[in-house]
């Protein structure tokens, strides 16, 4: 495959030298000579009046991937505790696998974690590969990449999903490059194209201003990362499947990055991603005192308080309670947005909530586009009233 000159036909006219924008053609003994600067762009082929430049570069074809099967999920554990995002991805994997008629496979790496494999079966895995080794206890990029590369090459999954945690966003790109597989980051929707049977990966871009659907036709596995809280974990009624322990082949070259200290910080505040009810506030709350009414309402609803980036920057709530693109993604049963205009960056973090209430003085605020119920008015009047009426209702039983 390439491009070459038929010296018999070449008359040394030099037209091709001018046509080549890479200066990759020289005149050698009166004939065109293509150097290794050639990029195979083939601009010269059409310029040659003598038809002396020939090429046999085939058009790009989609390879046959019929041997690549099953939907894999990398399930992250931290200190031996399985992260929820892995179970959420197993929930998504069940849908994808059923659309493909394939199986859901969980992959678990760590040390003394084999007992956790049952949990993966409970959340929909039909097979679990466990790599259990002291070198895998704390995450390190190269050993994890080594083990997963061997597993993928041996079993050829068609899809491989990884949670977009700090670990996942480190591991997935390294692994994808080693596997020569395409990777789509931070997907918010995944589905199977009914005709082509490929994975359609939808993700926000330009700060969430636009959504893009991406296909991965030219490589396998089709790799995607998904942020925590975006998909839904689904327990299966009758969990069954096999748990397979795999050997690891981690060498000294994989251990050149050494963990010399790990300082765990008790993070202030709570994990709002676990809350069933979230009462959130934005700029419209006015000040920290304005937020008091939200705490009160959240308390009555057994919920948590959250807010927008503005609320964090103003110091009204701590960073751990920020919802949105630069905060966390939440999907509670009920999300009450108070004085939040609903910039796309915020909506991206809460629009998958089961039910959304929006209270805002501006009837054109974008938050109303994603809400189930809307009240136009002053939050500083409405929220305390809501708490008062709720209290009375709860009192009535």
């Amino acid at each position, binding site marked *: 495959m390439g491009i070459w000159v038929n010296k018999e036909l070449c008359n040394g006219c030099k037209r091709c030298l001018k046509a080549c924008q890479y200066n990759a053609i020289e005149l050698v003994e009166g004939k065109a000579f293509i150097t290794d600067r050639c990029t195979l*762009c083939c601009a010269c082929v059409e310029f040659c009046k003598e038809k002396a430049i020939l090429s046999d570069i085939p058009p790009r074809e989609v390879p046959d991937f019929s041997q690549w099967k099953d939907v894999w999920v990398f399930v992250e554990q931290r200190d031996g505790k399985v992260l929820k995002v892995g179970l959420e991805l197993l929930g998504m994997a069940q849908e994808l696998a059923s659309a493909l008629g394939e199986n859901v496979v969980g992959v678990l790496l760590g040390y003394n974690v084999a007992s956790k494999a049952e949990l993966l079966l409970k959340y929909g895995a039909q097979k679990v590969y466990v790599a259990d080794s002291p070198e895998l206890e704390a995450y390190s990029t190269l050993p994890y990449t080594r083990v997963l590369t061997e597993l993928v090459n041996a079993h050829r999954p068609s899809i491989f999903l990884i949670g977009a945690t700090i670990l996942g966003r480190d591991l997935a790109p390294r692994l994808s490059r080693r596997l020569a597989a395409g990777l789509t980051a931070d997907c918010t929707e995944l589905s199977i194209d009914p005709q082509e049977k490929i994975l359609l990966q939808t993700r926000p871009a330009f700060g969430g*201003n*636009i959504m893009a659907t991406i296909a991965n036709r030219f490589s396998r596995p089709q790799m995607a990362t998904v942020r925590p809280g975006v998909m839904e974990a689904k327990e299966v009624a009758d969990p069954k499947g096999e748990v397979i322990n795999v050997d690891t082949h981690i060498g000294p070259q994989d251990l050149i990055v050494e963990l010399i200290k790990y300082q765990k910080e008790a993070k202030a505040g709570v994990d709002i991603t676990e809350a069933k009810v979230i009462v959130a506030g934005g700029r419209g709350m006015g000040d920290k005192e304005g937020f008091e009414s939200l705490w009160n309402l959240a308390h009555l609803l057994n919920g948590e308080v959250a807010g927008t980036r503005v609320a964090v920057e103003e110091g009204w709530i701590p960073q751990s309670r920020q919802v949105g693109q630069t905060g966390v993604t939440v999907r509670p049963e009920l999300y009450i947005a108070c004085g939040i205009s609903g910039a796309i960056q915020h909506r991206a973090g809460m629009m998958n909530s089961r039910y959304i209430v929006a209270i805002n003085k501006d009837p054109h605020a974008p938050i109303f586009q994603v809400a189930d119920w809307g009240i136009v008015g002053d939050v500083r009047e409405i929220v305390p009233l809501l708490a008062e009426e709720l209290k009375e209702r709860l009192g009535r039983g």
Partner: protein
Amino acid sequence: MEIVVLIKQVPNTTEVKIDPKTGNLIREGVDSIINPDDTHAIEAAVSLKEKYGGRVTAISMGPPQAVDALSEAIAMGVDKAILLTDKPFAGADTWATSTTLGKAIEKVGKYDLVIAGRQAIDGDTAQIGPQVAEYLGIPHVSYVAGIESVEEGRIIVKKAVEDGYQWLRMPFPCLITVISEINQPRPFHLARLLDACREKAPIEVWNLADVGLKVHQAGLMGSLTQVIKTFSPKSKREIKMLNGDVRSQVRELLSQLKQKKLI
């Protein structure tokens, strides 16, 4: 110490607007800036050079106007810059981008440390750093919040993770991606910026042939993933706006919530 810093010119996404009719991005009038995380990468590179000596080379792939980002990098103290610009580079996914950047780094020659920003605000993928490291066959640490020490061909970095910090040691050559916590980027050096604007800056422009790639290895043709459609985010919900005086709105809301067993 030979340092390569990877930077990207991005639209200031906080200013990006969507055309409500076409659903396309309106780029006119939107500033182009150095990607915020990348300004911290430049600062980290320049301050390491000031401490340990050596040279900093900045590389950026993009359209011809990305030269502005490189001029600004030079105004921050980068010694030399390379702009990778060519039509066949366009439309690259992170696979093709990391191939192109990797090739360019190899052509720069000997290097000890490659520094990149954690992620760019237009794509938010955070993939390029680890993928370039894998292409080059060197170790990497992402989410670096501090550089603790450099000695005897090794670097110790502080990485931010969800539950705290990790201190990691690795040998050169290696790659790090940095987050904004690592430093405060210095302002542009005015004289250097003026020089850069007068085209006196040491900026080279490389095309596909210069980095040694073929057309099917770069850009859209060399990508493993393709965007098949774009659209404005839309909600499938139908909103019910509540009416009446405030108290009756609140009461109506509560009975709706009660119906759905939310309270």
